[in-house]
């Protein structure tokens, strides 16, 4: 039987690894995907800091002994909003940069002409 801790931890680990790998790629599209993966990993991680538990009431009430921590969920919500906005921005920026410089390399060096026909 695989425990929930193992599942969550390995999911965070795999997402982070994929995110870092993609963020280190040379073209903007994989980098954007990598940043998105990283932010998913962070969101999962923030969820987990409230400790993993099942079947607990979501918010504190008088007399309750066991309840799940509501704060990480609020933090995740903020983090999702910010990372969503930032992803939209970086997509637009990457597009603008591609259209102005004619290359989608992050470091701005022009492509060699092997895929010349792919460009407008």
């Amino acid at each position: 039987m695989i425990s929930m801790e193992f599942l969550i931890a390995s999911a965070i680990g795999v997402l982070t690894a994929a995110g870092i790998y993609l963020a280190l790629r040379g073209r903007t599209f994989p980098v954007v995907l990598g940043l998105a993966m990283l932010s998913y990993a962070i969101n999962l991680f923030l969820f987990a800091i409230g400790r993993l538990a099942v079947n607990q009431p979501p918010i504190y009430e008088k007399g309750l002994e066991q309840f799940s921590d509501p704060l990480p969920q609020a933090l995740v919500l903020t983090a999702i909003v910010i990372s969503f906005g930032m992803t939209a921005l970086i997509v637009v920026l990457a597009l603008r940069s591609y259209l102005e410089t004619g290359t989608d390399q992050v470091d701005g060096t022009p492509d060699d002409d092997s895929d010349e026909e792919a460009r407008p």
Partner: protein
Amino acid sequence: MSTSLIAAPVLLPVLAGTATLLFRLRRRAVGAVISVASCAGLLVIAALLMARTYGADPQAYALGNWPAPFGIVLVLDQLSALMLVLTALLALAVAVHAVLTGLDRKGWHFHALFQFQLLGVNGAFLTGDLFNLFVFFEVFLIASYGLMLHGQGAKRLTAGVQYVIINLVGSSVFLVALGLLYGITGTLNMADMAVRAAALPAGDRGILQAGAFLLIMVFALKAALVPLHFWLPRTYANTAPAVAAMFAIMTKVGAYSIIRTATLIFGDEAGAFLLPAALATMVLGYAGMLAARQLRDMAAFGLLGSTATLLAAIALFDEAAMTAALYYMLHTTLAASLLFLLVDLVIRWRAVEGAEIVPTPAYKGKVALGVLFFITAIGFAGLPPLSGFIGKLLILAAATPAPLAPTIWGVILVTSLMGIIALARAGSSLFWKADASPPIPASRPAPDYTEAAPTMGLIALLVVLAAAAGPITAYAQSTAAQLFAPQGYISAVLGDNHGSAAP
């Protein structure tokens, strides 16, 4: 006066920034006036707050009147007040410069973005909550993305994409650090975290240290320490110089956050790697100044090096060094912005050669510009009689008892010499050497001398900083004493009993 004035430095830019949006297409002059007036208002508010907090205990303002560990608090102490005054002075100079040089008319939203950046920076200086610090970081970063791209251009866009990517990764690491710290202490309020971190069982200290390390690493990324500095020269050299002048405060937000969290929560063990990293950054920054072939690169590397000098002083982590660091922080922020504004003037008044460090045939305003450059170079390199000399002297004196003192002395003195050589070489090529090539038959428009007013204002501030070094160091000393006695900060936020809530 009630404590609600503490929220004013955050609220005023929001209102002003929103108001400038109304004058986007027509009557843009009104938007410019609103923006400059808001900066002047911020200066008045910051001065009032500083007068109120000098010699007094820190004061907290609970937003929405939620009690401290649960709601978000804004906390005003001497350090926050000092940073607010510095930000307002800088913002006023840069806003006036941008209006006079017409930079704000090269795009649509300059003033709104500028005000929102001030909102984020002021908020970061005031907040007493770590997650709120993250949010304010995001606010000024998002505004800075817009400002950085202001004016557009292919090179600026490429540098902008890199700048945004590196900061998104930085934000992710920030969140991981916050997660670790919240998971282990169960709070995000800085004062509450300080109390709980001190009471942690020994077995949990490792996770706290990991969180602290990640957090300090994010702040070091903002302050551009080796090996996290690669973004800074490219970003600052490719954006408009006046925008880069405003960005000089952003590296100081990193420095401020390191001071705040290290003195309050983590103690000096969190920053063990800071000193070697800062020394390496100094060497790299000033070497970059020497190697630069154009003025913007030189100013960007100069900012890198001088911020690293500041962080080296912070990393010494005692009261005398902190006093020196605070004085030097005022100097280096103003001097670095001054250098960027001057670079903008050189680019504008020469009109043909841009920022290249090459000899130029005579043009109108060359002599005046040469004098300004000379004074700026003296200020930036840290020669007497301007304030950089006093700042570096204070740092050297504070470093004497440290175990690494010979290294620190050596690095500071040698890098200062490198800075002097770089500036002297640039100045003599720009203003002294006769241009052997025939003059370019281009019309050089007569410069508008009023454009130099903000630059001269910043020079005047450096003079004041040097002339009033006594009272200013007294303030810095009392600030440093307050920082190393965090009890006052904690009881201002949590009340005297510091009854922290049940975990």
